[in-house]
């Protein structure tokens, strides 16, 4: 019996130790890759004359799809903001997802729209379309309004995809503020690759809490004043500047935030559009698109831009943040479960051999492994089997490892974007990163566990997400773009700061 117990503890200790070291090693590799990718990106983009291209008729056609449900208060302004985006060959498709308020009538009146007989190729199945409207005013010729029966965000997006005529699609969470040349910058990778077909391109998302936004334009970047958004700022640096950049270098990116991504319409249609039945439809779509390309043996890539092009409001309360992380966990579980055939399957190349296992081990399973490690530690402590001296040494190593990558991402941000220029602002970011293992991270792990629990209970709701609105300048109208409150900016390979604590003993 003692021998058996002995073996079990031996194996578990080693597994936990290896898991943590493997995680640190993977972060280390990702850091190097992200610097490499960032340098390449910088070289390829610093000479581009975006102003010249903003008026070029030679750019590919692009459709922005913006679903809206009961958004009477903002729908007209939102549509105007999207119409004002700097892109020469643009179409804006607003999908009224069966709103119960007067959103539709407001749009019809504001843009002088008329219902037209419209042949719709039902490439993706959706709830019935009740009307297609175009403006009589040629100024708004880029605008297309689709009225359909309510079917949820994924359904509305699919209806928009059916209606869109652009070669490229972007599905925007319209409560985000985009940089004016964001579309141009994001389209570039689609045209700039000679060897591979680019199927999707993701952009860096930044936290807008605390920033000054006027008339839908970001005027001043400031770090958030509250703890949670500030902590998420560092978390987003780590996820975008390190994680996604590195995975883009490896062509192993599994997630493009629903908040802002551009997709090839042809491949989205081939893949079957957004899945209605998952809460992680953004990740699921990218994984499905990749899977199809792998199965067809076509050379392809998913790219990523480190330029901060999209600004969004982060949850400021633990309740909302908890719901968000809970949903992210469920979305990840659902996506990985659906595409489990790819796990360690060499036919899917790097996707099956690295990306999927990484997500499974270090994203999906991380909360479970962490909590297991903690419980294991407690059990060993009860039986006085923990060598506290060595435990604290290893804990220090893991915690410092977490700090190292947070600090590294702040350094990358300073070097590449240099948006938080005041040394006090920078210090604030470093200081908040130091608190992550004791405040933010345990909460995120707890929310992840709740996500697992909810998934087991087959809970499939999004959870209500509320926003407080962006900071605004006095006497300026802030365009708080808001359609379906999706809150879908999953920060991706989170590069979790603190892996599982290790139960150990000293010699």
């Amino acid at each position, binding site marked *: 019996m003692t021998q058996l117990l002995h073996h079990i503890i*031996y194996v578990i*200790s080693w597994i936990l130790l290896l898991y943590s070291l493997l995680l640190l090693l993977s972060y280390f590799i990702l850091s190097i890759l992200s610097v490499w990718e960032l340098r390449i990106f910088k070289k390829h983009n610093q000479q581009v004359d975006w102003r010249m291209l903003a008026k070029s008729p030679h750019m590919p056609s692009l459709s922005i799809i913006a679903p809206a449900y009961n958004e009477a208060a903002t729908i007209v302004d939102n549509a105007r903001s999207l119409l004002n985006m700097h892109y020469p060959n643009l179409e804006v498709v607003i999908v009224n997802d069966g709103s119960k308020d007067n959103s539709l009538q407001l749009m019809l009146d504001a843009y002088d729209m008329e219902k037209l007989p419209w042949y719709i190729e039902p490439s993706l199945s959706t709830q019935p379309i009740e009307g297609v409207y175009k403006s009589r005013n040629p100024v708004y*010729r880029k605008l297309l309004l689709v009225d359909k029966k309510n079917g949820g965000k994924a359904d509305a997006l699919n209806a928009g995809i059916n209606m869109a005529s652009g070669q490229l699609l972007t599905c925007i969470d319209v409560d985000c503020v985009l940089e004016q040349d964001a579309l141009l910058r994001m389209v570039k990778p689609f045209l700039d690759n000679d060897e591979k077909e680019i199927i999707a391109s993701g952009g860096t998302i930044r936290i807008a809490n605390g920033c000054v936004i006027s008339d839908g334009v970001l005027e001043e970047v400031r770090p958030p004043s509250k703890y949670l958004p500030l902590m998420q700022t560092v978390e987003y640096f780590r996820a975008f500047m390190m994680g996604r950049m590195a995975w883009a270098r490896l062509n192993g990116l599994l997630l493009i935030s629903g908040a802002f991504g551009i997709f090839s319409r042809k491949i989205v249609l081939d893949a079957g559009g957004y899945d209605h039945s998952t809460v992680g439809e953004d990740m699921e779509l990218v994984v499905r698109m990749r899977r199809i390309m792998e199965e067809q043996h076509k050379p392809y890539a998913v790219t990523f831009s480190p330029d901060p092009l999209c600004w969004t409001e982060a949850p400021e309360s633990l309740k909302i943040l908890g719901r968000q992380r809970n949903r992210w966990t469920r979305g990840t579980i659902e996506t990985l479960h659906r595409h489990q055939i790819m796990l360690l399957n060499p036919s899917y190349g790097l996707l099956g051999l690295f990306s999927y296992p990484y997500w499974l081990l270090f994203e999906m399973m991380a909360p479970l492994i962490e909590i297991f490690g903690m419980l294991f530690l407690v059990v060993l402590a009860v039986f006085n*089997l923990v060598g506290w001296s060595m435990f604290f040494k290893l804990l220090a190593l893991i915690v410092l490892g977490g700090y190292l990558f947070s600090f590294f991402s702040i350094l990358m941000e300073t070097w590449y974007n240099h948006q938080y*220029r005041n040394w006090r602002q920078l210090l604030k970011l470093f200081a908040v990163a130091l608190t992550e293992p004791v405040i933010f991270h345990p909460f995120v792990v707890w929310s992840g566990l709740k996500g697992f629990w909810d998934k087991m209970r087959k809970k499939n709701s999004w959870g209500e997400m509320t926003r407080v609105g962006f900071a605004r300048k006095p006497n300026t109208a802030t365009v708080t773009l808001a359609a379906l409150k999706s809150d879908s900016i999953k920060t991706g390979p989170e590069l979790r700061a603190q892996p599982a604590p290790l139960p150990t003993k000293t010699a």
Partner: protein
Amino acid sequence: MFNYLSISLLQLTLPTEHLYSTLYSATIVMLLLCILLFVLAMWINARKNKRMAQQNKLQPLLEYLLEYVILTEEAADDSEEERQNIRAMIARIPNGTQSRKMLLAMVAESLPSLAGVAKTNLQFFAREAGLVDLAAAQLHSSTIANRINAVKHLGLLQATEYKKAMFRLTNAADKVLREEAQLAMVRLLGYTGLRFLKVLDKPLSEWQQVCLLQLMSEQKAPDFSRVDLWLQSSNETVQYFAVRLVCENSLFGHQDLLVKLLQSPSERLRLLVIKTLASVFDEFTSAHLIQHYPVAGSREEKLALIETIGAIADVPACDFIRSKMIGSAGFEKFQLVKAWLRAGLAPEELLENSGDERETTIMISHAQYLLAS
């Protein structure tokens, strides 16, 4: 019992002593690295802020100089007095490389949006201020980023004396350098600058094609005499670009070469050729396209063929559309309806021949809206 157990577990469950010391050292290294990253970030921030402050200090003066040069009404080439004035302005530029580099960047940023006297004066100013030499000095730098910068600046400053050096770079191994050199050649020589296409054996990315087309749209004196050569290039991307030129500029007289390209293995190229033929067709084009229809590789290609045949709208084209309409369905039918209307055929005839009258009516209305807009 527990003590005994813990000692044996200690010996067996945990890594060796050697590993302990390694982990301990790793912890120390991590701590030092954290401190280093913190210091580095603060230092980079301070350095960037300092540079920005210096630039902010210099900016008003440099902006004033550029404003003067740009707003001067007389061309420096024609007026000795103006040349003297500009030289006097140049004398006011603070010494030091930073101010020159900043000035070069500002001039490079301003030049694309200028024309006429303002542009020539600014180019004269840049040359007299030694900015061309400053840029040229970087042309052979060991750092690729410096060379790319140099090529761009020399192109913008119209430094034609470096055209040979830049021409050599139009086929460079480094993609960014190559593309910047290609753009610089067009900036320097206009359409003649495109002669690099003849020798280019590297791919011409679609992005680069968009940039070149946009740049060429701003050039004077179009010269498409070499399009035939490019259409026959062994480089598929050059062929693609040539077809785009034919399409954008409606260049007639290349139909035979275009029709030959329908046999290209590249579907992307075939699609572009089909779309191009809609605007530059001759009396034989529809026959070629109808002949190609059965061997078209994809649905997209077939749809493009229908659209182009509808645009040509000669007798064989109309017969083709009529024949294809029978039994068609879905998006193919919609495309045929568009082609039908575009060919000038009567909608009534279409309604008589189609199965689902309601669907056909919707398609006709939609197609009429699209064609009208």
